[in-house]
């Protein structure tokens, strides 16, 4: 034992924790290389990278970046920006409250990956490096130089774990893995954010507007990516770009501001979302938009049940189905058994109410269970709904739902003479059918967001969170657990039903197989839950972002073919391993998963 301890102390003493870079280049040269490389990458995007337009996006034009070049341009610009900020250029310091070094590293890495991905894609697709024009070589070298320069920036080295001489080779291997992981982590670790200088309220609102505009631009760009290479490049750049902004502390700073002006943020977000159809010339993208909105709205409703009250509901999509079927039956569709045609407001309320009644019927017996048991029972009820609807076709049961054919030819909505099936021209923009529904759905989303916000910040919302945190203590505080949980369940069901009433009209037809537990196309119960968990439980923006990603990624990764779901599953597993609290974490949740991380003593409203 004594010899052991002496060796380990000697090793620890030998190890030197003075900050230095991952690569042995002097810091000032590294910084210059990173900044210069970023700038050169920007310039190179104005050159031609290949000689033929056979590669999608037309990268052959001088002076006009196209396709993937735009992404490299953005990455390079970001690297340069952070580089300049690290030189202390006035005004840029606001962008990097948590230090710029790790932001430079991530931005440079993102640019490098995007650029080299592009170069490799060109070479492989067109058959060889000969297809590259000088611009292609320049960008490759520039991004590599920027990356090397960025990696030379010094960082605080972690103290490595000391190997036990009795370790087996396998344990030594694991130890080496752990040490290199902590090294990489330290390399990209950011400093603590310096407190923001107070800026006037109008400037804060301008920041929010800028953030919303950026969000809309990124989202619109992502939806509009026309070919697979571009979408993959988009994911790479957006991912690394966002990570770089987060490391710079900018995301935290902006979310602090949005937390301060929550109403402005909400209005801003909805104005940005409402602007989306005007940015599109083709109704095809509005279609994606409206499906994402339906998916996101239902996910947000589920977030009340799962995120706030902590009830794992695996059959949630059934309530969407109840709403959709209700609306379809009273829409005057020829295949509906009822010859009723209610106006939309009436069918929307009816759909929500019927879904709520189903929620109470299903919730009353199941909510007495806890945890896994509740999940299993709700899973069963979800399937019971689908199978019952499938069998109520007149042969196996009463003729109500028209069986597997579903209720088809659901007429378009007509509210105050505004026909949702027609194209309309608003301020010179043509707004077609799906864009019409997009606006209606946006209104429903707004309703759900308001319901979520108001209910979570109230007596009942606190009771939900208390039940989730510790049910026994909550009961001892006088909370009627069953009643409160039933309210959460019924409210969630009603919101899903409300979304379902619009969905029925958007899709023309409602069939049982739209409402399965798991299916390739969202929304279904598994995807809804994934959207909530991926985005971040208990937050408003989390499920919205999660739903958008979960809809877009499978829709855009068609080239993966049969491996699509496999890749998707792998991505989810990796995400849950490294960021279990979701993309936009609730402060409370984040603490649960990262106990060891220093917890902020004061809970800000920003993450909630």
């Amino acid at each position, binding site marked *: 034992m004594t010899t052991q301890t002496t060796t380990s102390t000697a090793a620890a003493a030998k190890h030197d924790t003075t900050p230095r870079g991952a690569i042995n280049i002097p810091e000032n040269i590294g910084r210059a290389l990173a900044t210069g490389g970023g700038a050169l990458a920007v310039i190179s995007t104005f050159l031609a990278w290949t000689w033929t337009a056979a590669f999608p996006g037309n990268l052959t034009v001088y002076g006009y970046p196209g396709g993937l070049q735009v992404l490299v341009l953005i990455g390079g610009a970001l690297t340069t920006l952070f580089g300049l900020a690290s030189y202390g250029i006035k005004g840029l310091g606001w962008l990097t409250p948590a230090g710029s070094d790790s932001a430079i590293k991530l931005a440079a890495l993102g640019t490098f990956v995007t650029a080299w991905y592009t170069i490799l894609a060109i070479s492989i697709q067109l058959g060889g490096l000969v297809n590259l024009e000088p611009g292609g070589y320049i960008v490759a070298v520039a991004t590599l130089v920027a990356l090397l320069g960025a990696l030379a920036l010094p960082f605080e080295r972690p103290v490595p774990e000391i190997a036990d001489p009795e370790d087996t080779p396998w344990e030594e291997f694991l130890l080496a893995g752990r040490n290199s992981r902590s090294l990489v982590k330290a390399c990209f670790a950011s400093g603590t954010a310096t407190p923001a200088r107070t800026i006037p309220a109008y400037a804060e609102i301008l920041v929010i507007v800028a953030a919303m505009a950026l969000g809309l631009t990124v989202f619109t760009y992502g939806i509009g990516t026309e070919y697979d290479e571009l979408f993959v490049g988009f994911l790479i750049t957006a991912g690394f770009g966002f990570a770089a902004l987060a490391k710079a502390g900018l995301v935290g700073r902006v979310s602090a501001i949005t937390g301060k002006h929550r109403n402005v943020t909400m209005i801003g977000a909805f104005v940005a979302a409402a602007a989306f159809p005007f940015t599109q010339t083709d109704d095809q993208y509005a279609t994606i938009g409206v499906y994402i909105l339906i998916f996101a709205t239902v996910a947000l409703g589920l977030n009340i049940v799962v995120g706030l009250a*902590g009830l794992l509901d695996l059959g949630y999509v059934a309530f969407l189905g109840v709403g959709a079927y209700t609306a379809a039956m009273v829409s005057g569709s020829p295949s509906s058994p009822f010859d009723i045609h209610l106006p939309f407001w009436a069918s929307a309320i009816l759909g929500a109410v019927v879904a709520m009644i189903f929620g109470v019927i299903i919730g009353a017996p199941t909510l*007495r*269970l*806890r*945890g896994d048991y509740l999940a299993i029972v709700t899973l069963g009820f979800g399937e019971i709904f689908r199978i019952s609807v499938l069998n109520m076709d007149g042969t196996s049961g009463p003729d109500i739902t028209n069986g597997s054919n579903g209720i088809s030819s659901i007429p378009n909505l007509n509210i105050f003479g505004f026909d949702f099936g027609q194209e309309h021209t608003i301020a010179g923009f043509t707004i077609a059918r799906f864009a019409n529904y997009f606006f209606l759905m946006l209104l429903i989303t707004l309703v759900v967001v*308001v*319901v979520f916000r*108001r*209910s979570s*910040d*109230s*007596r*009942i*919302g*606190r*009771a939900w*969170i*208390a039940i989730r*945190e*510790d*049910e*026994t*203590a*909550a*009961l*001892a*505080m*006088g*909370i*009627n*657990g069953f009643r409160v949980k039933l*309210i959460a369940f019924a*409210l969630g069901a009603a919101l899903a039903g409300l979304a379902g009433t619009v969905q029925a009209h958007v899709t023309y037809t409602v069939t049982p197989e739209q409402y399965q537990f798991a299916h390739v196309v969202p929304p279904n119960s598994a995807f809804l839950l994934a959207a909530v968990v991926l985005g971040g439980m208990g937050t408003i923006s989390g499920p919205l972002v999660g739903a958008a990603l979960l809809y877009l990624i499978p829709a855009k990764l068609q080239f993966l073919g049969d491996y699509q779901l496999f890749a998707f599953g792998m991505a989810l597993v990796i995400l849950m391993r490294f960021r279990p609290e979701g993309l936009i974490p609730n402060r*409370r*949740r984040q*603490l*649960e998963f990262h106990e060891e991380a220093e*917890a*902020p*003593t*004061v*809970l800000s409203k920003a993450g909630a």
Partner: protein
Amino acid sequence: MTTDTTTKGTTATGETVLDARGVTMRFGGLTAVRNVNLTVNSGEIVGLIGPNGAGKTTFFNCLTGLYIPTEGEVRYKDQVLPPKSFKVTAAGIARTFQNIRLFANMTVLENVLVGRHTRTKEGLWSALLRGPGFHKAEAASRERAMELLEFVGLDAKAEHLARNLPYGEQRKLEIARALASEPGLLLLDEPTAGMNPQETRATEELVFAIRDKGIAVLVIEHDMRFIFNLCDRVAVLVQGEKLVEGDSATVQGDERVVAAYLGEPFEDAPGKEEIAEVEAAEANADAPTDAAPGKENDR
């Protein structure tokens, strides 16, 4: 009831708040609590002590609605206790837990606001529509919660997460949260467990301050000095039965109590096996009441 009307210090014994009559709790064939009588009067601090496995916690759970006594009844201000723990709280009995059970990821203020649940009425509709009544009730709740935090000395930390409080302050917060339900009787389950002498002293002061507010207090505790400093009356529970009840001097002088604690043999001393039996039976009784509140390690 033994003849024990001698109370020390302030003799502010008023009406009977809690009246447990012949409470017996059986788990299968095992009697964990046998025919225990206990009264707590308003303005009184009553202690409940006993060796491990004596049935203190079982008795406590009978008082808080977690268990329904097999025989006998518990009356709170002449009303038989309802059989659900949240109804007991609504009736006016609040409790703290032996192992702190705060809502760790809520702020200090939010924890106390949850405690206000039974004293506020605003439901879902009120929260969604946000009428003037909602804002008024919310503001009143916050004001009352802040008062309570001031009372226990946590008002400066209202926005901190409960999990970040030091141990002693978590105990205080739990008491503030229990007080938020405006109880007539406060049950404290080992309030000084794991505390250093200074913190114990502070807790003593706090309990006196609570008593001075007119709230009756029933304390389970192992710290004898704490109990005998604090309580007007102490009841000793041994092997499920009340051995003796009286003021500190009576209890401290009683040789049966000394025997029970020091393990000297006397006629009915609880053997090790019996203690283990009682504990096992209690654990078993917890398992089937899964949906009922009572399970300790629940999510």
